[in-house]
């Protein structure tokens, strides 16, 4: 492709594919005020269903599309029925977390069934191209455009002229009022999930055909792109979602033309953050309109936290410290060291998401910042390793807080999306800033852990080091929570309006908590970098963010001891039982789902 015409066509085609995703997300958001993070998984399932039909049964294209639509619709119905309907009346964040859990499970099941390797999705249309003026247009392009426009037309007809469509619109406008007027809201939900998922699945099929390439990891990116397009167009706004998708497709296509492929997602996420911060209602909303509000509410289930006396905690810490002497098994020690490092991440997130109520979905970015900071400081500037780890914490705190600061005014799900996007931006900047981060090659030869010139070269000494850092930071966090700051932060989380009227400046305390929390995450990332001796932009990936959230919910939001316990259970146990890596993610997803549904207060209770 060379001409602007081609880039425009390409942008519009990609925009069409995004639109199929974003319209579904917008419909779902409209009726249930939920951002469906499992949408990308439906898209992947759609792609693989098409792959299976074509390669195994040689189905012709029209039949393939019908099969994919059916599979998508059924999957949507199942997600709604078993994943989300039981959560009615739960905290608003609960269904969102459930869709994250569902997406982990679905992606992992696809991966286990079809292997993580990419597959080709053959299509006879791929080769056909027509000459138009100086540019060309492919038969597939035309098909995608036709499906996009056709679906939009059908959807318009459905919403406008059918009884069920009317019920959907009524529910989207005011769910309670619709219910009182006798609208079967559950039926509306079912319908919307079926339609949205059918569109999402077709989108997956079309992408697979367009690039002649599918793999299970497409899911996360697809969700993100759909969310970006939707937010740009105005959350819950169906025509807005279509316009936002086209805009996103064009921005990406021209961005690639100007700067190259690896910047593609960077543009998407920066667009998202800019729109979120400047026009949280989307580009096309009228100015005075208040954003759809009932998206606040943290994941704090009222509970009596399990009280553990300081003496008991001290005894447990001592026992942990003595363990290497009693059980000098390197495998156990390495596993627990890993658990301590995740414990640090848990401390960080339990403060930010639990105590303050900012559900961050991009926490791995703080690990990445810490990891790169410590690696580069020690490698390029020759800084002693202990000091570089400390500074890594400070840099993560400063940079992390600066990056999220503009998003502090967002509430509920919006903030979660923003953190997710910021996480992606950090990882893309790391990938693209070659001169500092060595780009895709990654940083190798990172010096091993050492402290005051003594190299920590045994499993034991590394174990003690990680445990020591964890105990010190956990103790500080305890002390902080028992000070006036503990009640101030928790007050903000419980009711930010009341907190403000008692003089609590929200930005100040959010920033303060975020900085304190990010420090622990940065230190954890720093230590990890020296342990691995090699890191790249994928070392701290977005799965870690979700793992961190699962750890924190498992232990009990805001619960310091809980974060450490959660980490030992989720990171340590699978290791001890030598669960294969691909099953672990499946386990995380299932644990998250079960927790959200059956024990939202976690094991030790929310604080």
């Amino acid at each position: 492709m060379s001409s602007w015409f081609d880039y425009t066509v390409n942008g519009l085609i990609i925009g069409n594919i995004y639109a199929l995703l974003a319209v579904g997300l917008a419909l779902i958001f409209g009726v249930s005020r939920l951002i469906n993070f499992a949408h990308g998984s439906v898209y992947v399932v759609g792609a693989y269903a098409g792959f299976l039909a074509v390669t195994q049964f040689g189905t012709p294209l029209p039949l393939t599309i019908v099969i994919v639509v059916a599979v998508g619709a059924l999957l949507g119905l199942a997600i709604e029925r078993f994943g989300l309907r039981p959560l009615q009346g739960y905290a608003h964040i609960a269904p969102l977390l459930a869709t994250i859990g569902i997406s982990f499970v679905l992606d992992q099941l696809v991966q286990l069934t079809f292997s993580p390797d990419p597959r080709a999705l053959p299509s006879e249309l791929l080769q056909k191209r027509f000459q138009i003026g100086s540019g060309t247009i492919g038969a597939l392009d035309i098909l995608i455009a036709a499906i996009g426009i056709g679906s939009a037309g059908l959807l318009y007809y459905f919403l406008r002229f059918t009884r069920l469509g009317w019920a959907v619109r009524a529910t989207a406008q005011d769910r309670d009022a619709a219910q009182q007027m006798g609208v079967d809201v559950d039926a509306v939900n079912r319908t919307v999930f079926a339609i949205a998922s059918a569109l999402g699945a077709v989108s997956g099929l079309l992408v697979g055909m367009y690039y002649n390439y599918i793999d299970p990891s497409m899911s996360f990116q697809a969700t993100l792109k759909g969310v970006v397009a939707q937010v740009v167009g105005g959350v819950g706004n169906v025509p807005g979602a279509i316009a936002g998708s086209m805009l996103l497709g064009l921005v990406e296509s021209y961005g690639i033309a100007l700067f190259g492929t690896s910047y593609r997602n960077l543009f998407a996420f920066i667009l998202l953050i800019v729109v979120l911060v400047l026009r949280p209602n989307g580009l096309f909303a009228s100015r005075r309109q208040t954003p759809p509000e009932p998206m606040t509410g943290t994941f704090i289930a009222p509970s009596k936290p399990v009280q553990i006396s300081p003496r008991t905690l001290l005894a447990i810490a001592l026992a942990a410290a003595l363990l290497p002497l009693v059980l000098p098994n390197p495998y156990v020690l390495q596993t627990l060291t890993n658990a301590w490092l995740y414990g640090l991440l848990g401390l960080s997130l339990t403060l930010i998401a639990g105590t303050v109520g900012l559900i961050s979905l991009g926490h791995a970015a703080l690990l990445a910042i810490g990891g790169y900071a410590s690696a580069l400081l020690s490698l390029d500037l020759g800084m002693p390793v202990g000091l570089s780890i400390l500074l890594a914490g400070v840099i993560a705190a400063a940079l992390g807080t600066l990056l999220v600061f503009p998003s502090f005014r967002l509430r509920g799900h919006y903030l979660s999306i923003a953190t997710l996007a910021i996480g992606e931006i950090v990882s893309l900047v790391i990938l693209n800033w070659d001169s500092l981060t060595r780009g895709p090659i990654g940083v190798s030869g990172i010096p091993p852990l050492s402290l005051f010139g003594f190299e920590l070269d045994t499993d034991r000494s590394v174990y003690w080091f990680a445990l020591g850092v964890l105990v010190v930071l956990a103790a500080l966090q305890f002390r902080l929570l028992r000070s006036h700051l503990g009640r101030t932060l928790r007050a903000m989380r419980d009711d930010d309006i009341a907190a403000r009227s008692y003089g609590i400046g929200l930005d100040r305390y959010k920033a303060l908590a975020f900085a304190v929390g990010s420090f622990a995450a940065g230190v954890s990332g720093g230590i990890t970098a020296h342990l691995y001796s090699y890191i790249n932009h994928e070392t701290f990936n977005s799965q870690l963010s979700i793992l961190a959230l699962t750890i924190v919910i498992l232990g009990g939001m805001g619960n310091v001891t809980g974060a450490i316990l959660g980490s030992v259970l989720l990171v340590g146990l699978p290791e001890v039982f030598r669960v294969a890596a691909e099953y672990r993610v499946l386990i995380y997803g299932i644990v998250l789902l079960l927790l959200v549904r059956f024990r939202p207060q976690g094991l030790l209770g929310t604080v």
Partner: protein
Amino acid sequence: MSAAPSLLEVRSLTRRFGGLTAVNSVDLDLAEGEFLSVIGPNGAGKTTLFNLITGHDDPDGGTVKFSGRDITRLPPEWLATLGIARTFQHGRVFANLSVMDNVLVGAHVRFKAVRPAWPSPLSLLGPFAEVALALIRPSSVVTEEKRMREEALRILARFGDRLLPRLDHPTYSLSYANRRRVEIGRALALGPKLLLLDEPTAGMNQTETAEMQTLIGDLKKSGLTILLIEHKLDMVMQLSDRVIVMDNGSVIANGKPAEVRNNPAVIEAYLGHRRSDKSEASVPEAAE
């Protein structure tokens, strides 16, 4: 009407929601130590007026002055530092915080030792100092916390043994009436110059209401300036120095309780809204 300088001065305050004018060019003066009640049928705009005064909502027009200073459009967290405290009609306690912590959060702006106020260029360091002081806890911080806790106990003692035995209970576990009491305790902990109470006895039974009336009466005697929204007119008549009546966003009457009670426009306003179900309870009282 009062010679004393106004503590609160509201001029032509207006707030529109789409086509609806919830607060329509309202004027209001409140002298230091005065007790003013705002009454009116449901939807009259009373709560919206409170929101405008306390910075929770921005007016479309008009001004609010406090101690002679223009506070229109200032955010609530600033107004707290000036000594304005309020309670909320539907209750906004911090559900997962204990009774004690709720009240202590009320005193947030008065914690000076742990939140040093530094001059402008250094003020960016404020949050760092706050974290450091919270962790190190020098004796000044410890004494301050202790002093505030003692004061919180004194405030809670005003409610007899309603709250004292439940100091450590999270407020979500309290009865409805007790949650309202916690809210008032929290407001008192701010050491307010002006206290705004939005239906403090809503949902309380007669005994509880009488108890609350005594408490508010005591606050008045102690010289606190109070602005009260209340549907229970008996209470309003007994407590207030002055009453203003709102209907459809506008002030339709303003004067001594006895004057207002017999004002035909007021009776009309209440009777005219008879079909709105919530206000029915107060209609007989108004018409008496």
